């Protein structure tokens, strides 16, 4: 009888990286649905475009790197990157904006660093930051939510949307379907107090509800992933708490000039970031304690950049900055091993 020698364990849990990615994609569905409902077809078109491009770029670069195509394409990580970037950019962005972003995310930020698992930065956020810096006009032309467009589901039609994305339209067309985001309005308030601006701005009176709804949808997806143990609570919760505490503190001192914590949590990319960006395991800190620090630092940075920085939203920059810090955080946040009095710190501790 000839049998093979194999190392233990001889059984393994029926899960795979592709399963993890699939669950993440499923968890984005409520958010995508909410965005489609409130902002129209643009989001779906962007996701489709980004996915095709991402798979194409991934395949091409895998071919160049002489890696097995099927094995790596099946892991689904390119799709996750594509979806996250597609929902982060304005729904009516031109195709070349998306293409540039996906190219940068997949080819530069991920594959050139060695592919899945080796990228130090979150690819979607690298691409987003690049686009925001390179094409500020396109990247700040957000679609107005339907709640601002009067009764019924008045959105740009699918054909119109395709035309906007792949062709060109009159500049005046944009005026009827795009507008400032609540964070824009709150940032560029021209000397008005928070209360005044809340009374005057249509974006805030009618539009903010849509943003809350979208955030709630992302939150639902996040809770789903948490329940499936795809990630732990540490990073998202600490990020949300840090942001909330920062906002509460300043709003508590000076409600005229600072925005309420509820708005900070409910608008912009806060929820998307907390549950789909900050939780990216590859580029984040790895131990539970490390994740708490990582998440909290992102929360604080988001508040700082939103309040005093030049950009209305700040998730991408905060995440990228903390991606840089993750290896360092890892060194100082080892858990205390069983049987040890205290955890090792840094690299030179006694083993």
């Amino acid at each position, binding site marked *: *009888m000839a049998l093979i020698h194999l190392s233990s*364990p001889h059984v393994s849990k029926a899960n795979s990286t592709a399963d993890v990615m699939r669950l993440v994609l499923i968890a984005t569905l409520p958010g995508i649905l909410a965005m489609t409902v409130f902002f129209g077809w643009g989001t779906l078109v962007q996701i489709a475009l980004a996915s095709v491009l991402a798979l194409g770029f991934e395949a091409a670069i895998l071919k160049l790197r002489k890696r097995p195509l099927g*094995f790596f394409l099946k892991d689904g990580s390119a799709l996750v990157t594509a979806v996250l970037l597609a929902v982060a950019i304005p729904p009516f962005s031109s195709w070349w904006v998306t293409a540039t972003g996906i190219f940068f995310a997949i080819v530069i930020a991920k594959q050139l660093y060695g592919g899945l698992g080796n990228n130090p930065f979150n690819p979607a956020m690298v691409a987003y930051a690049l686009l925001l810096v390179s094409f500020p006009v396109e990247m700040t032309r957000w679609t107005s939510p339907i709640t601002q467009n009067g009764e019924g589901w008045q959105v740009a039609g699918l054909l119109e949307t395709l035309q906007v994305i792949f062709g060109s339209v009159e500049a005046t067309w944009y005026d009827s379907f795009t507008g400032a985001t609540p964070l824009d309005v709150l940032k560029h308030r021209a000397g008005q107090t928070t209360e005044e601006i809340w009374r005057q701005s249509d974006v805030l009176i009618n539009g903010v509800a849509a943003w809350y709804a979208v955030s709630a949808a992302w939150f639902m997806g996040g809770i789903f992933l948490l329940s499936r143990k795809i990630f732990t609570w540490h990073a998202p919760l600490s990020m949300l708490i840090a942001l909330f505490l920062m906002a509460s503190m300043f709003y508590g001192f000076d409600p005229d000039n600072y925005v309420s914590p509820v708005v900070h949590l409910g608008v912009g990319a806060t929820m998307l970031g907390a549950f789909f960006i900050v939780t990216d*395991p590859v580029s984040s800190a790895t131990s539970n304690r490390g994740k708490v620090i990582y998440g909290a630092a992102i929360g604080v940075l988001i508040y700082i950049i939103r309040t005093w920085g030049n950009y209305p939203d700040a998730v991408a920059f905060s995440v990228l900055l903390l991606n840089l810090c993750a290896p360092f955080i890892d060194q100082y946040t080892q858990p205390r091993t069983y*049987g*040890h009095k205290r955890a090792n710190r840094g690299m030179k501790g006694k083993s």
Partner: protein
Amino acid sequence: MSKVFAFHGGVHPPENKKQSSRAPIGKAPLPARLVLPMQQHIGGPADPLVKVGDRVLKGQLIAEPIGRISASIHAPTSGIVVDIAAYPIPHASGLSAECIVIEPDGEEQWVEHQGLGDYKALNRQELIEHIRRSGIAGMGGAGFPTDVKLHLSEDHIVNTLIINAAECEPYITADDMLMRERAHEVIGGIEVIAHLLRPSHILIGIEDNKPNAIHALQSALKHCDLNIDVIVVPTKYPSGGERQLIKLLTDIEVPSGRIPADIGIVCQNVGTTSAVYRAVHRGEPLISRIVTVTGDAVRHPQNLETLLGTPFSTLLEACDLRPEALARLVLGGPMMGVTVDNDRIPVIKTTNCLIAATEQEMPPAPPAQACIRCGMCEQACPADLLPQQLYWFSKGREFDKAKNHNLFDCIECGACAYVCPSNIPLVQYYRFAKSEIRTEEREQQKADHARERFEARQARLEREAAEKEAKRKARAAEAAKAQEQRKAQAEQPASEAPAASASPDIKQLKTAAAVARTKLKKAQKAYDEGAAASVDNLAELEAALNDARQKAEAAEQALSAGSPAPSGGGDDQLKQLKVAAAVARTKLKKAQDALKSAEDKGLDGIDKLRATVETLEQKASEAQQAFDAAQKTSAPAAVENAPQPEPNSPESGIDAKALKQQVSIMRTKLKKSQTALDSCEDAEEKARLEQEVADLKQRFDQATAAFEKAEQAQIEAAAKDGVDLKQLRIDAAMARAAVTKSERALSKAESDDERSTIEQDLVAAREKAETLNQTLSQYE
């Protein structure tokens, strides 16, 4: 104390225990051959006591333990020993090791045995020794000799005895079935162990997936006087790990690198307690155990009471193996078991389970994907490690970092690899890293050892060389002493002898004296400079100067003492004395100058200087006296020597030469003495010196007369031998001139280096001159 705590991590793999726990414990058939490895436990292998061809009885001791940590082995049945050789053993390495092979005769004839009866009446040591003789080793998997653990209460305080009945690995039901069917044996064994360890708590940790076993234990406990708690823990792999079970039951962590006994806990497996029971109450050594035979490739998975040494093939046949379906044969559980590559490997004391798995049941692992650091392994790790980091470090061969991340606290339970979505064989990476680190450490130790050995060897060689040198010196000194004695004896009758034999010592002394003089000069210079610059540490300098002076004097004294008194040696002594006197005078002069300049400048150290000058004056006069005294002794000697030798005899040549030298020396001394007399200020001294000069003059005249007489005789003698006495004389004169030249150069030399070089040259020149003089003297 029945609270259950928690340990970090853990996984819930499919249990797969039902298949093998439906049927009661069966009995494995008697195989054609039993193969008994000599090492079925941790520690030293046992030593066979039987020979090929011996008939053994069931339960007979066939191999005895070697060393403290080892276990005896008994014949599992009666039969004939047919071979003692290397056979494949159940080990991860797949290697072979020494085994005793027994061919059973089927009679099952027991060796005479009986239980101990009232074991509590026995001495503890005797009881433990009985358990040791019964060959019991831990039956949970590691196989640590049980008697060693029973001794733990002697040097540790054992509070708690934990009976490990968790059996957390999937598939395995051996302990479960044992507890269900033989709970009284388990309890009986616990009583024996408790009697030996005297713990205050006894806890049985059992997973909640064994309700029947829990019930059986609780029923059996009704008849037990001991306070034993059956603690039901949630089913979670690896709750049966010793450290994890301790944490579960007591909330105490065993410190890293220590054993549970260090925190007052001893763990025993339920299987072991049953074996202890059988050994103590029935006198049966450990010759069989319960083995779970399971897996989809056997049609009738069940537990079998199996004789140790039974090949796996017998068990698989007994459970109706489907050979075509067998893909993987795992020894132990699916999480930590090892695969074996053939079915002739025997059951040993630690074999608790045999899984004949099909391809579907345990499919080959899919190719590993990239680690996305999802952290699932971290959540599963029961040792609170960061498996994802350890993986990176092991893969990147960053072993220092891996060690820093407590790689060696990894128990290789496989929970991380089990949950890894990327199917990375994490445990293999850790084993690799551990073995690499161990290899490195061994290499390092070897290198250190080699270095130490080399250094020790070097030290030994140096020591030996030093000893040799010391011995050689001692021998040389002895020889010199002997020679001196001989010389002294020779001198006694002859009253004089050639100084040649004493020359090495004198040479050395000369060099020493030269060095001392140089030092003195240096000290003097430093002192002078110090005095001129009026430095604070004048006193120190002076002390140094005095010290140097004393040394120089000592060296000169030694030299003069070492020089064989009159004749040729006396010449040297005289020279030295002369030099000493001259030096003393120079010093005196310098000191006087210094004093004068100091007086001019009105310095603080003036009193000291004055005292120094006085001392120097005294010394100068002493040196002069010594010189005069020496001269006095040598001059009469020359005078005495002169008439004695036979003019024509060759020996008389020496005297003639000495005479000549004495004459020339006399002349110079006389001159010097006169100069001294002129420079002398003290009236008393002057008178004395005048007297001496007169004396010297007289002696000089005598010496000259004696020399002339002797020379005449020499010339006549040399002419007879036909030696060119003139030429020799010229050579000798030239050598002497070289000496003088060197002496002059020395006096002119300024730098110390130059001076010492010249001094050496001078010594060499002197030697040459001496040699020539000696040659000359042979013919004179």
